[in-house]
Protein backbone atom coordinates (compact mmCIF):
# COMPACT_ATOMS: atom_id res chain seq x y z
CA UNK A 1 0.00 0.00 0.00
CA UNK A 2 2.91 2.36 0.82
CA UNK A 3 4.34 1.91 -2.69
CA UNK A 4 0.99 2.69 -4.33
CA UNK A 5 0.54 5.78 -2.12
CA UNK A 6 3.99 7.08 -3.09
CA UNK A 7 3.24 6.39 -6.77
CA UNK A 8 -0.06 8.33 -6.48
CA UNK A 9 1.70 11.28 -4.80
CA UNK A 10 4.36 11.35 -7.56
CA UNK A 11 1.78 10.97 -10.34
CA UNK A 12 -0.37 13.81 -8.97
CA UNK A 13 2.69 16.07 -8.72
CA UNK A 14 4.00 15.16 -12.18
CA UNK A 15 0.78 15.08 -14.23
CA UNK A 16 -1.54 17.48 -12.40
CA UNK A 17 1.02 19.72 -10.72
CA UNK A 18 -0.61 19.30 -7.29
CA UNK A 19 1.06 18.01 -4.15
CA UNK A 20 -1.06 15.61 -2.17
CA UNK A 21 -0.07 14.08 1.14
CA UNK A 22 -0.96 10.40 1.49
CA UNK A 23 1.21 9.65 4.53
CA UNK A 24 -1.80 8.02 6.21
CA UNK A 25 -1.89 5.31 3.56
CA UNK A 26 1.80 4.44 4.08
CA UNK A 27 1.30 2.86 7.50
CA UNK A 28 -0.25 -0.58 7.67
CA UNK A 29 -1.93 0.04 11.04
CA UNK A 30 -3.47 3.31 9.81
CA UNK A 31 -4.78 1.63 6.65
CA UNK A 32 -6.31 -1.16 8.77
CA UNK A 33 -8.02 1.41 11.01
CA UNK A 34 -9.33 3.29 7.96
CA UNK A 35 -10.86 0.13 6.47
CA UNK A 36 -12.37 -0.72 9.85
CA UNK A 37 -13.81 2.80 10.02
CA UNK A 38 -15.38 2.45 6.58
CA UNK A 39 -16.80 -0.93 7.66
CA UNK A 40 -18.30 0.60 10.80
CA UNK A 41 -19.79 3.48 8.74
CA UNK A 42 -21.42 1.09 6.27
CA UNK A 43 -22.70 -1.11 9.12
CA UNK A 44 -24.10 2.03 10.78
CA UNK A 45 -25.93 3.15 7.64
CA UNK A 46 -27.39 -0.30 6.95
CA UNK A 47 -28.25 -0.83 10.63
CA UNK A 48 -29.79 2.64 11.03
CA UNK A 49 -31.96 2.13 7.93
CA UNK A 50 -33.13 -1.32 9.04
CA UNK A 51 -33.80 -0.07 12.58
CA UNK A 52 -35.69 2.99 11.25
CA UNK A 53 -37.88 0.74 9.08
CA UNK A 54 -38.48 -1.70 11.94
CA UNK A 55 -39.35 1.07 14.43
CA UNK A 56 -41.56 2.88 11.87
CA UNK A 57 -43.55 -0.25 10.95
CA UNK A 58 -43.66 -1.58 14.52
CA UNK A 59 -44.76 1.69 16.12
CA UNK A 60 -47.28 2.44 13.33
CA UNK A 61 -48.76 -1.08 13.59
CA UNK A 62 -49.13 -0.82 17.37
CA UNK A 63 -50.57 2.72 17.12
CA UNK A 64 -53.19 1.60 14.61
CA UNK A 65 -53.96 -1.99 15.70
CA UNK A 66 -53.09 -2.29 19.39
CA UNK A 67 -55.51 -2.04 22.34
CA UNK A 68 -56.30 1.53 23.43
CA UNK A 69 -53.98 1.74 26.52
CA UNK A 70 -51.10 0.37 24.44
CA UNK A 71 -51.85 2.86 21.64
CA UNK A 72 -51.61 5.72 24.15
CA UNK A 73 -48.28 4.46 25.50
CA UNK A 74 -46.88 4.02 21.98
CA UNK A 75 -48.22 7.48 21.03
CA UNK A 76 -46.32 8.99 23.98
CA UNK A 77 -43.20 7.02 23.09
CA UNK A 78 -43.30 8.23 19.50
CA UNK A 79 -43.84 11.83 20.70
CA UNK A 80 -40.69 11.41 22.78
CA UNK A 81 -38.78 10.38 19.66
CA UNK A 82 -40.21 13.25 17.65
CA UNK A 83 -39.40 16.00 20.13
CA UNK A 84 -36.04 14.96 21.61
CA UNK A 85 -32.79 16.10 19.97
CA UNK A 86 -30.82 13.23 18.38
CA UNK A 87 -27.53 14.13 20.14
CA UNK A 88 -29.28 14.00 23.52
CA UNK A 89 -30.85 10.61 22.72
CA UNK A 90 -27.44 9.34 21.57
CA UNK A 91 -25.85 10.33 24.89
CA UNK A 92 -28.80 8.80 26.72
CA UNK A 93 -28.21 5.57 24.80
CA UNK A 94 -24.52 5.78 25.71
CA UNK A 95 -25.30 6.19 29.43
CA UNK A 96 -27.81 3.31 29.41
CA UNK A 97 -25.54 0.97 27.37
CA UNK A 98 -22.57 1.84 29.60
CA UNK A 99 -24.69 1.01 32.67
CA UNK A 100 -25.78 -2.38 31.31
CA UNK A 101 -22.60 -3.76 29.79
CA UNK A 102 -18.88 -3.18 29.21
CA UNK A 103 -18.70 -0.31 26.70
CA UNK A 104 -16.88 -1.18 23.45
CA UNK A 105 -16.98 -0.39 19.73
CA UNK A 106 -19.66 -2.97 18.83
CA UNK A 107 -21.78 -1.99 21.88
CA UNK A 108 -21.54 1.68 20.84
CA UNK A 109 -22.56 0.66 17.30
CA UNK A 110 -25.64 -1.22 18.54
CA UNK A 111 -26.62 1.67 20.87
CA UNK A 112 -26.26 4.19 18.01
CA UNK A 113 -28.26 2.03 15.57
CA UNK A 114 -31.10 1.64 18.08
CA UNK A 115 -31.17 5.36 18.96
CA UNK A 116 -30.99 6.61 15.34
CA UNK A 117 -33.61 4.01 14.35
CA UNK A 118 -35.92 5.03 17.19
CA UNK A 119 -35.51 8.78 16.50
CA UNK A 120 -36.33 8.50 12.78
CA UNK A 121 -38.71 5.55 13.11
CA UNK A 122 -40.89 7.47 15.59
CA UNK A 123 -41.37 10.25 13.03
CA UNK A 124 -41.97 7.89 10.09
CA UNK A 125 -44.28 5.68 12.20
CA UNK A 126 -46.44 8.69 13.05
CA UNK A 127 -46.71 9.54 9.33
CA UNK A 128 -47.81 5.95 8.50
CA UNK A 129 -50.36 6.02 11.33
CA UNK A 130 -51.73 9.38 10.06
CA UNK A 131 -52.06 7.92 6.54
CA UNK A 132 -53.90 4.89 8.00
CA UNK A 133 -56.34 7.09 9.95
CA UNK A 134 -57.13 9.39 7.01
CA UNK A 135 -58.54 6.47 4.97
CA UNK A 136 -60.07 3.89 7.40
CA UNK A 137 -60.69 1.25 4.68
CA UNK A 138 -57.05 1.31 3.59
CA UNK A 139 -54.77 -1.69 4.22
CA UNK A 140 -51.69 -1.24 6.41
CA UNK A 141 -49.45 -1.75 3.35
CA UNK A 142 -51.49 0.89 1.52
CA UNK A 143 -50.88 3.32 4.41
CA UNK A 144 -47.14 2.53 4.27
CA UNK A 145 -47.18 3.29 0.54
CA UNK A 146 -49.19 6.51 1.07
CA UNK A 147 -46.67 7.67 3.68
CA UNK A 148 -43.81 6.50 1.44
CA UNK A 149 -42.40 10.00 0.92
CA UNK A 150 -42.09 10.59 4.67
CA UNK A 151 -40.67 7.11 5.28
CA UNK A 152 -38.05 7.69 2.59
CA UNK A 153 -37.29 11.18 4.00
CA UNK A 154 -36.60 9.72 7.45
CA UNK A 155 -34.53 6.84 6.03
CA UNK A 156 -32.38 9.48 4.30
CA UNK A 157 -32.29 11.40 7.58
CA UNK A 158 -31.09 8.24 9.35
CA UNK A 159 -28.25 7.90 6.83
CA UNK A 160 -27.36 11.59 7.25
CA UNK A 161 -27.44 11.25 11.04
CA UNK A 162 -25.24 8.14 11.13
CA UNK A 163 -21.85 9.96 11.38
CA UNK A 164 -23.11 11.56 14.62
CA UNK A 165 -22.65 8.11 16.19
CA UNK A 166 -19.01 9.15 16.53
CA UNK A 167 -20.18 11.36 19.43
CA UNK A 168 -20.66 8.25 21.59
CA UNK A 169 -17.45 6.56 20.52
CA UNK A 170 -18.43 4.44 17.51
CA UNK A 171 -15.11 4.02 15.64
CA UNK A 172 -16.61 4.94 12.25
CA UNK A 173 -14.80 6.62 9.34
CA UNK A 174 -15.13 10.23 10.58
CA UNK A 175 -13.90 9.33 14.06
CA UNK A 176 -10.94 7.33 12.73
CA UNK A 177 -9.93 10.06 10.28
CA UNK A 178 -10.24 12.74 12.98
CA UNK A 179 -7.94 10.72 15.26
CA UNK A 180 -5.43 9.84 12.54
CA UNK A 181 -5.21 13.40 11.20
CA UNK A 182 -5.08 15.08 14.62
CA UNK A 183 -1.55 16.34 13.99
CA UNK A 184 -1.82 16.68 10.22
CA UNK A 185 -1.35 20.12 8.64
CA UNK A 186 -3.68 19.27 5.78
CA UNK A 187 -6.91 18.85 7.74
CA UNK A 188 -9.01 20.64 5.11
CA UNK A 189 -8.23 17.89 2.56
CA UNK A 190 -9.03 15.21 5.15
CA UNK A 191 -12.44 16.69 5.94
CA UNK A 192 -13.15 17.37 2.28
CA UNK A 193 -12.55 13.65 1.63
CA UNK A 194 -14.95 12.82 4.47
CA UNK A 195 -17.57 15.20 3.14
CA UNK A 196 -17.36 13.64 -0.33
CA UNK A 197 -17.54 10.11 1.17
CA UNK A 198 -20.60 10.79 3.33
CA UNK A 199 -22.44 12.90 0.74
CA UNK A 200 -21.81 10.15 -1.84
CA UNK A 201 -23.16 7.59 0.62
CA UNK A 202 -26.33 9.65 1.19
CA UNK A 203 -26.82 10.17 -2.57
CA UNK A 204 -26.44 6.41 -3.17
CA UNK A 205 -29.06 5.73 -0.48
CA UNK A 206 -31.41 8.33 -2.04
CA UNK A 207 -31.10 6.61 -5.45
CA UNK A 208 -31.69 3.16 -3.92
CA UNK A 209 -34.74 4.33 -1.94
CA UNK A 210 -36.28 6.01 -5.00
CA UNK A 211 -36.20 2.63 -6.77
CA UNK A 212 -37.64 0.78 -3.76
CA UNK A 213 -40.40 3.39 -3.32
CA UNK A 214 -41.40 3.07 -6.99
CA UNK A 215 -41.52 -0.75 -6.65
CA UNK A 216 -43.66 -0.56 -3.48
CA UNK A 217 -46.12 1.86 -5.13
CA UNK A 218 -46.30 -0.46 -8.18
CA UNK A 219 -46.94 -3.51 -5.95
CA UNK A 220 -49.70 -1.72 -3.96
CA UNK A 221 -51.36 -0.54 -7.20
CA UNK A 222 -51.34 -4.08 -8.59
CA UNK A 223 -52.81 -5.64 -5.42
CA UNK A 224 -55.60 -3.04 -5.06
Amino acid at each position, binding site marked *: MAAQATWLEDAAAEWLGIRINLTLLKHESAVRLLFEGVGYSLALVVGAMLATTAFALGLAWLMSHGPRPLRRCIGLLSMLGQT*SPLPLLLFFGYVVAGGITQYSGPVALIAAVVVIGFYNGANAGRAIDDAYRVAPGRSFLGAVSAAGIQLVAFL*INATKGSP*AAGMIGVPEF*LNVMTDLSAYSRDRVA*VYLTLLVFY*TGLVLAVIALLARLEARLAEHVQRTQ
Partner: protein
Amino acid sequence: MIDTLRHFLPQLLAGFLVNLQVAGGALAIGLVVGMPLALLRQVAPRSGRIVWPCVRLMQAAPVYVVMFFVLSLLPRDLMLFGGHGIGLAAVILAQSVYMTAYVAENGYRALVHLRREEPELALLFLPNLLRGTLVVVMSSGFGAAIGVSEAVSVTMREAEKLHAAGDRVLLFVVVIGFFVAVFSTANALIGRLVRHMMAKKLAVTG
Protein backbone atom coordinates in the same frame (compact mmCIF):
# COMPACT_ATOMS: atom_id res chain seq x y z
CA MET B 1 -30.40 14.93 43.24
CA ILE B 2 -32.75 17.87 43.92
CA ASP B 3 -29.72 20.05 44.78
CA THR B 4 -28.06 18.94 41.54
CA LEU B 5 -31.14 19.85 39.52
CA ARG B 6 -31.44 23.21 41.31
CA HIS B 7 -28.02 24.38 40.17
CA PHE B 8 -28.23 22.53 36.83
CA LEU B 9 -31.49 24.01 35.50
CA PRO B 10 -30.13 27.60 35.05
CA GLN B 11 -27.15 26.09 33.18
CA LEU B 12 -29.53 24.08 30.98
CA LEU B 13 -31.50 27.24 30.16
CA ALA B 14 -28.27 29.12 29.35
CA GLY B 15 -27.23 26.21 27.11
CA PHE B 16 -30.62 26.20 25.42
CA LEU B 17 -30.17 29.91 24.65
CA VAL B 18 -27.03 28.92 22.70
CA ASN B 19 -29.15 26.39 20.73
CA LEU B 20 -31.58 29.22 19.92
CA GLN B 21 -28.64 31.44 18.94
CA VAL B 22 -27.44 28.75 16.49
CA ALA B 23 -30.93 28.41 15.00
CA GLY B 24 -31.30 32.21 14.70
CA GLY B 25 -27.93 32.54 12.96
CA ALA B 26 -28.62 29.63 10.58
CA LEU B 27 -32.09 31.01 9.79
CA ALA B 28 -30.68 34.45 8.97
CA ILE B 29 -28.01 33.00 6.65
CA GLY B 30 -30.54 30.57 5.14
CA LEU B 31 -32.92 33.43 4.29
CA VAL B 32 -30.19 35.68 2.89
CA VAL B 33 -28.76 32.94 0.62
CA GLY B 34 -31.80 30.68 0.07
CA MET B 35 -34.39 33.27 -0.98
CA PRO B 36 -32.30 34.68 -3.87
CA LEU B 37 -31.80 31.06 -5.08
CA ALA B 38 -35.59 30.51 -5.03
CA LEU B 39 -36.15 33.83 -6.83
CA LEU B 40 -33.51 32.99 -9.42
CA ARG B 41 -35.24 29.68 -10.20
CA GLN B 42 -38.58 31.51 -10.51
CA VAL B 43 -37.28 34.35 -12.70
CA ALA B 44 -34.84 32.32 -14.81
CA PRO B 45 -36.03 28.67 -14.90
CA ARG B 46 -32.92 27.62 -16.87
CA SER B 47 -30.76 28.54 -13.86
CA GLY B 48 -32.42 25.60 -12.10
CA ARG B 49 -30.10 23.26 -13.98
CA ILE B 50 -27.17 24.63 -12.00
CA VAL B 51 -28.88 25.84 -8.84
CA TRP B 52 -30.97 22.74 -8.12
CA PRO B 53 -28.17 20.15 -8.15
CA CYS B 54 -26.35 22.44 -5.70
CA VAL B 55 -29.44 22.57 -3.46
CA ARG B 56 -29.73 18.76 -3.66
CA LEU B 57 -26.06 18.42 -2.66
CA MET B 58 -26.63 20.77 0.28
CA GLN B 59 -29.58 18.61 1.35
CA ALA B 60 -27.53 15.43 1.07
CA ALA B 61 -24.50 16.70 3.03
CA PRO B 62 -24.65 15.44 6.65
CA VAL B 63 -24.63 18.46 9.01
CA TYR B 64 -22.33 16.67 11.47
CA VAL B 65 -19.62 16.15 8.82
CA VAL B 66 -20.11 19.65 7.36
CA MET B 67 -19.53 21.01 10.87
CA PHE B 68 -16.08 19.37 11.09
CA PHE B 69 -15.25 20.51 7.54
CA VAL B 70 -16.18 24.13 8.36
CA LEU B 71 -14.19 23.89 11.59
CA SER B 72 -11.11 22.87 9.60
CA LEU B 73 -11.58 25.90 7.30
CA LEU B 74 -11.98 28.52 10.03
CA PRO B 75 -8.84 30.19 11.40
CA ARG B 76 -7.97 28.87 14.87
CA ASP B 77 -7.57 32.40 16.31
CA LEU B 78 -10.99 33.60 15.13
CA MET B 79 -12.50 35.90 17.76
CA LEU B 80 -16.29 35.80 17.74
CA PHE B 81 -19.10 35.68 20.32
CA GLY B 82 -16.92 36.76 23.23
CA GLY B 83 -13.72 34.92 22.33
CA HIS B 84 -14.77 31.25 22.14
CA GLY B 85 -16.67 31.51 18.91
CA ILE B 86 -14.89 29.19 16.48
CA GLY B 87 -16.99 26.16 17.48
CA LEU B 88 -20.19 28.18 17.57
CA ALA B 89 -19.44 29.71 14.16
CA ALA B 90 -18.80 26.21 12.76
CA VAL B 91 -22.16 24.92 14.05
CA ILE B 92 -24.04 27.97 12.73
CA LEU B 93 -22.40 27.71 9.29
CA ALA B 94 -22.97 23.93 9.09
CA GLN B 95 -26.64 24.35 10.02
CA SER B 96 -27.00 27.21 7.55
CA VAL B 97 -26.12 24.83 4.69
CA TYR B 98 -29.21 22.77 5.59
CA MET B 99 -31.29 25.91 6.18
CA THR B 100 -30.30 27.47 2.83
CA ALA B 101 -31.46 24.36 0.94
CA TYR B 102 -34.66 24.29 3.04
CA VAL B 103 -35.45 27.99 2.39
CA ALA B 104 -34.62 27.67 -1.32
CA GLU B 105 -37.03 24.75 -1.76
CA ASN B 106 -39.90 26.06 0.40
CA GLY B 107 -39.41 29.62 -0.85
CA TYR B 108 -39.71 28.42 -4.44
CA ARG B 109 -42.97 26.60 -3.63
CA ALA B 110 -44.32 29.78 -1.99
CA LEU B 111 -43.41 31.81 -5.09
CA VAL B 112 -45.22 29.29 -7.32
CA HIS B 113 -48.36 29.67 -5.15
CA LEU B 114 -48.07 33.47 -5.35
CA ARG B 115 -47.88 33.28 -9.16
CA ARG B 116 -51.05 31.15 -9.16
CA GLU B 117 -52.68 33.82 -6.96
CA GLU B 118 -52.95 31.53 -3.92
CA PRO B 119 -51.58 33.85 -1.22
CA GLU B 120 -52.93 31.72 1.66
CA LEU B 121 -50.99 28.67 0.45
CA ALA B 122 -47.94 30.84 -0.15
CA LEU B 123 -48.16 31.98 3.47
CA LEU B 124 -47.62 28.37 4.58
CA PHE B 125 -43.98 29.26 3.98
CA LEU B 126 -43.98 30.86 7.46
CA PRO B 127 -44.98 27.75 9.50
CA ASN B 128 -42.64 25.67 7.31
CA LEU B 129 -39.85 28.09 8.17
CA LEU B 130 -40.64 27.66 11.87
CA ARG B 131 -40.54 23.85 11.43
CA GLY B 132 -37.13 24.10 9.77
CA THR B 133 -35.90 26.31 12.59
CA LEU B 134 -37.08 23.75 15.16
CA VAL B 135 -35.13 21.03 13.31
CA VAL B 136 -32.03 23.23 13.55
CA VAL B 137 -32.56 23.88 17.28
CA MET B 138 -32.80 20.11 17.81
CA SER B 139 -29.74 19.20 15.78
CA SER B 140 -27.62 22.10 17.07
CA GLY B 141 -26.73 19.70 19.89
CA PHE B 142 -24.12 18.28 17.49
CA GLY B 143 -22.06 21.25 18.67
CA ALA B 144 -21.35 19.23 21.83
CA ALA B 145 -18.85 17.22 19.76
CA ILE B 146 -16.69 20.31 19.18
CA GLY B 147 -17.04 21.85 22.62
CA VAL B 148 -19.89 24.31 22.10
CA SER B 149 -21.59 24.93 25.44
CA GLU B 150 -25.17 24.26 24.39
CA ALA B 151 -27.87 22.30 26.24
CA VAL B 152 -26.68 18.77 25.31
CA SER B 153 -23.06 19.60 26.11
CA VAL B 154 -24.07 21.12 29.49
CA THR B 155 -26.08 17.96 30.24
CA MET B 156 -23.14 15.68 29.41
CA ARG B 157 -20.82 17.70 31.66
CA GLU B 158 -23.30 17.46 34.53
CA ALA B 159 -23.82 13.72 33.93
CA GLU B 160 -20.07 13.12 34.16
CA LYS B 161 -20.10 14.59 37.69
CA LEU B 162 -22.71 12.06 38.84
CA HIS B 163 -21.41 8.68 39.99
CA ALA B 164 -24.56 6.55 40.16
CA ALA B 165 -25.95 5.31 36.81
CA GLY B 166 -29.49 5.85 38.15
CA ASP B 167 -28.79 9.55 38.81
CA ARG B 168 -27.40 9.97 35.30
CA VAL B 169 -30.47 8.36 33.74
CA LEU B 170 -32.72 10.58 35.91
CA LEU B 171 -30.84 13.68 34.75
CA PHE B 172 -31.35 12.66 31.11
CA VAL B 173 -35.04 11.98 31.73
CA VAL B 174 -35.42 15.52 33.15
CA VAL B 175 -33.63 17.08 30.15
CA ILE B 176 -35.56 14.97 27.63
CA GLY B 177 -38.77 16.03 29.45
CA PHE B 178 -37.69 19.67 29.07
CA PHE B 179 -37.16 19.26 25.32
CA VAL B 180 -40.41 17.31 24.87
CA ALA B 181 -42.32 20.13 26.64
CA VAL B 182 -40.67 22.89 24.59
CA PHE B 183 -40.93 21.20 21.19
CA SER B 184 -44.41 19.73 21.59
CA THR B 185 -45.65 23.22 22.60
CA ALA B 186 -43.89 24.75 19.58
CA ASN B 187 -45.29 22.04 17.25
CA ALA B 188 -48.81 22.55 18.65
CA LEU B 189 -48.54 26.32 18.05
CA ILE B 190 -47.32 25.74 14.48
CA GLY B 191 -50.20 23.29 13.92
CA ARG B 192 -52.68 25.91 15.18
CA LEU B 193 -51.16 28.53 12.89
CA VAL B 194 -51.48 26.20 9.87
CA ARG B 195 -55.10 25.33 10.74
CA HIS B 196 -55.90 29.05 11.15
CA MET B 197 -54.38 29.81 7.73
CA MET B 198 -56.21 26.95 6.02
CA ALA B 199 -59.53 28.03 7.62
CA LYS B 200 -58.90 31.52 6.28
CA LYS B 201 -58.23 30.10 2.81
CA LEU B 202 -61.50 28.10 2.92
CA ALA B 203 -63.39 31.24 4.01
CA VAL B 204 -61.90 33.20 1.08
CA THR B 205 -62.65 30.50 -1.54
CA GLY B 206 -66.12 30.02 -0.03
